[in-house]
């Protein structure tokens, strides 16, 4: 019952975090691959590796030509016709067999819902940061979130710092660079 929306909510989050980790993994393996490039100048391998960031950015920029603007933002900007056009392009073929459609297409009902929600948000007074800090129960929640995210970052992220340390130590031990890149592609450190 109440599990259904949860399952659906998590799809996006899961796909995003899989993506980040998969790309970390791929990047480390590419790093290992590039370390085998032999060049007299020596600059080629790392310049190529760094330069591929340009490709990522170029794909992002090129892909944006076909992307729609967010319908929610368009409604906030009072560009209602454009919002409706985007919604019909995205969800025009959407069929919800178990709901009473009342002859109205799905994207149209979605548009009405978004518009009503935004109107409600604009009419009700906003929750500022000060009002959150003033009320003990909200303040507690804010601190829990800050605490959680700070410590998550401190414990899990910042691979560079750890790598910097391990690289320095390993350089002192005079181990080969291939060993180091191989190790980093396995451990992600």
């Amino acid at each position: 019952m109440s599990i259904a929306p949860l399952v659906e909510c998590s799809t996006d989050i899961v796909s995003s975090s899989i993506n980040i980790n998969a790309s970390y993994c791929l990047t480390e393996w590419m790093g290992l691959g590039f370390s085998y490039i032999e060049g007299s100048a020596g600059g080629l391998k790392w310049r190529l590796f760094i330069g591929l960031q340009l490709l990522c950015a170029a794909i992002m920029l090129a892909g944006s030509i076909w992307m729609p603007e967010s319908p929610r933002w368009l409604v906030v900007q009072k560009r209602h016709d454009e919002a409706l056009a985007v919604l019909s392009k995205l969800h025009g073929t959407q069929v919800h067999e178990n709901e009473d459609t009342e002859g109205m297409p799905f994207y149209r009902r979605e548009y009405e819902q978004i518009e009503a929600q935004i109107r409600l948000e604009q009419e009700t007074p906003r929750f500022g940061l000060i009002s959150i800090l003033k009320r003990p129960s909200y303040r507690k929640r804010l601190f829990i979130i800050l605490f959680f995210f700070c410590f998550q970052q401190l414990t899990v992220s910042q691979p560079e710092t750890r790598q910097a340390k391990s690289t320095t130590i390993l350089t002192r031990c005079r181990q080969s660079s291939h060993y180091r890149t191989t190790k980093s592609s396995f451990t992600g450190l």
Partner: protein
Amino acid sequence: MAVTSSALDHRILRVLLKMNKYNLLCILYCSFGAFFYGYDSGLTTSIIGYPEFITYFNFNATTLGALGSAYYAGNFAGSLVNLWLPDKVGRLKTVQIAAVISIVGAGMQTGAHSLGVLLAGRAIGGIACGIIVSLCPLYASEISPPHVRGRVGGLYK
């Protein structure tokens, strides 16, 4: 109520298939933002394993730390930009601006002949990635159909 994992898989699959192709491509584009971030931030961990790279810029422990931190300082600035820019100029334009900033930053890093240029390029690239990594989940949730729309935006903010 117990939910078996196969039922869960089936449910996710059904949800994914219940959108049109264009919408699916749009969501894939947004998740490419995560890949973009992963590549940009992940590459330093491998690259400082290259002895040529270390000797070229004459790295020591302090400057290596600066190389790692410059990127995350940029990330921080980029996330702050997200407080107002996506609401002002729109989600799509913000992504485009970030991609252009990233091209500038990556260009500086690729052509760097001194440590200063490399670190500046890293910080600029970090700003772009800071924008993209926090905006893309929000953007994805706003263009996805309601049955897959999560609290992704809220979670990442």
